[in-house]
């Protein structure tokens, strides 16, 4: 029998070493300031007797202008058996979003591959019969697809116990994420867009913040990138204080446009995005910060 110290050491070793957790799920470069890429999440609390399979989806949730990127689920594991393959295939679909109807003629392909990093992957590619149209789609995965799947990064909850990862092959600039985290200078608000945005005005003018109905004073941290023609994926505002327990409204000025002049949209409408939410209700315990996923 293991004593408690041994058990703790075993769990710690698993957290550090990772059983079947791919190396590249860890992002060491201060991701919240890295052009809107996924934030590294700490390793989950795994049980030693039940190794988790880390799953990744490409494109990531709310990516737009994905062109001919083939929707793919990557599983960080040596090999999944035929039974598990069948289980995963039966519970993974490429669907129209938000209708939820399956895209006809999709051919799933499962392959095992080892890359130069030594990582073993099983990949499930959902290959459409013809190029996807310029509209929203989603990769829908039933949460019971495999009992030990762990999604990183996670999508949003869909209908009837599914996780969906939404994407748009054409240009459709939307807000992918709003993150709020403590910063040395106050509260940092990171707004991540699906495409690069630019403007000839400060982000502090272009992004309106109202906390409990009162305007919040913020300074922009990314104007230098915003003023450039190629713009930026992420706007960062450093605010004096944000009441995490009260309603927060975030609005965007129409001067904020993509490189080809398109205005921001909500995911499914052409109106400018407007968010009203209570930050504390969107606290992501894995990331240790507030993350609103529209």
């Amino acid at each position, binding site marked *: 029998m293991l004593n408690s110290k041994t058990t703790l050491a075993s769990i710690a070793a698993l957290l550090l070493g990772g059983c079947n957790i791919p190396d590249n799920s860890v992002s060491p470069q201060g991701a919240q300031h890295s052009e809107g890429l996924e934030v590294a999440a700490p390793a989950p609390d795994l049980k030693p007797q039940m190794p988790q399979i880390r799953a990744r989806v490409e494109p990531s949730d709310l990516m737009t202008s994905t062109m001919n*990127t083939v929707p793919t689920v990557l599983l960080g594991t040596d090999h999944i058996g035929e039974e598990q393959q069948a289980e995963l295939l039966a519970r993974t679909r490429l669907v129209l979003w938000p209708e939820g109807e399956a895209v006809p003629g999709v051919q799933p392909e499962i392959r095992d591959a080892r890359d130069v*990093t030594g990582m073993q992957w099983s990949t499930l590619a959902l290959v459409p019969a013809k190029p996807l149209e310029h509209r929203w789609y989603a990769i829908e995965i039933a949460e019971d697809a495999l009992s030990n799947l762990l999604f990183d990064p996670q999508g949003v909850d869909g209908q009837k116990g599914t996780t969906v990862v939404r994407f748009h092959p054409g240009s459709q600039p939307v807000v992918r994420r709003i993150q709020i985290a403590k910063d040395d200078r106050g509260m940092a608000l990171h707004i991540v867009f699906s495409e690069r945005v630019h403007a000839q005005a400060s982000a502090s003018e272009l992004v309106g913040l109202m906390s409990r109905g009162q305007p919040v004073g913020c300074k922009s941290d990314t104007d230098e990138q915003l003023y450039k023609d190629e713009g930026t994926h992420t706007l960062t505002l450093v605010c004096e204080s944000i009441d995490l327990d009260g309603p927060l409204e975030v609005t965007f000025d129409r001067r904020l446009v993509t490189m080809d002049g398109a205005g921001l949209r909500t995911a499914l409408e052409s109106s400018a995005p407007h968010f009203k939410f209570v930050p504390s209700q969107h606290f992501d315990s894995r990331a240790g910060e507030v993350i609103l996923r529209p």
Partner: protein
Amino acid sequence: MHDYRYRAPPRVALLALLAGTMGLLGPSEASAQSFRPASFSGSKDFSINISSDEGVRNRWNWSQYAPGQNTHRRILGNSRMYRADLVPSRMDIRTPVTSGDFDRLEAGWADRSPSVTRNGSSLAAMQVPLSFNGYRLRTLQSPGLKLSFKTNDAYEATGYTLGTLRVRSTSDQGTTSFISLYERVTGVLVGGDDVVTMRVPATRDKMTISTWTDSFALGVAVYARCNAQPSRTAFHRRRYLTPTAFVELPACTGTWYISLTNIHPSDQVFHLSVGSHKADRELKNIKVGVAYSISATERAQVQQALEDAAWRIYGASQGSQIIRSFKWYQADACDDGWPAEEFACGGSPCNICLHPEEGRSNCSASKKMTLYRNSNRNSATIAHEMGHCQLGLPDEYQDTTNKTCRQVSSLGLCGHSIMEASWDNINGFCTAMNHRRHTVSCTGLNPRNFYCRGNTGPYGYECGGRRRWIDGTSMWDRLFDDGKVRYRHPNRTPDNHNYMNFNVTNYLGQTY
């Protein structure tokens, strides 16, 4: 290797092929944001000029290629290019005396065995045949071509130059494939508007992309995006090639998609490699002390050599070792011994000391480099010494000066490594495959290339009762074993490019 394909009935695929070949199919999705692979009718020639001269050369006859090579080059084009002929402009590869292992050039689709093998002197085109992967055509984008040059351990000749890549175009097959770390890519882009996209798995470490064109042309750009193909409005990094571009990638959980685009009217040939380095292998503020009155000219030349050496190390380590910067100290003393040198560079020891006299540059046991005046502007020498001081690698030659055998002053035992001889075009570290496979004679110290003592290569030399030994561990294995690289280099000859064409980018080796 991943290669996703659309499934369509074979007849449809064949009709699409015919229609594409006849120029009947347009782009599937017209969009201002989209990059589109260029189409053309008939065949198109690109001057790619891939030559064995880029590889390691025979140390004693520079007109010859070195023995013991297994080089690898990935050749990419767009997702419409489905047939490829590699046309040599020079062929002088030793014809085999017996069957078995012999010098040869091999080409084929990257996910299959080579389809054409060549040696001798024929200039006939090496034709890579049309090939289906399921219901889709293999293209130069996916999986691309793989070119290998393999030489045995003797009988080298002067080598080859592939002057022309001839391709044909069909409908867009829409697939991309993975490239690897440590892989050298050469690609072609049609003038006017074209794109080539590839993927590489993001690592847990920092990653860099080095890409350059053979000639300067405004309008060639590299785009990188995490987890999806880049578009003109959605990318995480973009750089224009002028004619080099060095991209430091931010964090990514997933896959990097890398697109090369060309809007210049003329066709372009690009080169690319992707590196990954651990955070602690990015070395900054290496302290350089000089305790004599150095002229502004000499100082500028030394600093340029330091920068060049940083790029050489980047190249030799395939992007896994980053020499970011040097800090310059006009010191009171530097190489005078304890205690003065302990405080010479800002109150602490210098890492590099410039010596006012001529002598033999070296790296001491305490990892301090002394650069004598006759070699302080030689970037190859500095890179060799950095191999000792910054990377902890040993020599791969034996000093025979003042020893019993005086035929040569130093005896190389691993001619594919900058730790053996840091001159001429050698710019790599050995892997286990080529470690100790390019040497002088074991017995007679005759300056010729001989492969000694079977498959493991020579242990050293023996002469006049003296035996000198060389370490059996290759430099790449040492880097891996010492934790300086996370991923072991594949067991082949590493790419030999020295990356000194990047020395105007101000990314590495800057002195402050």
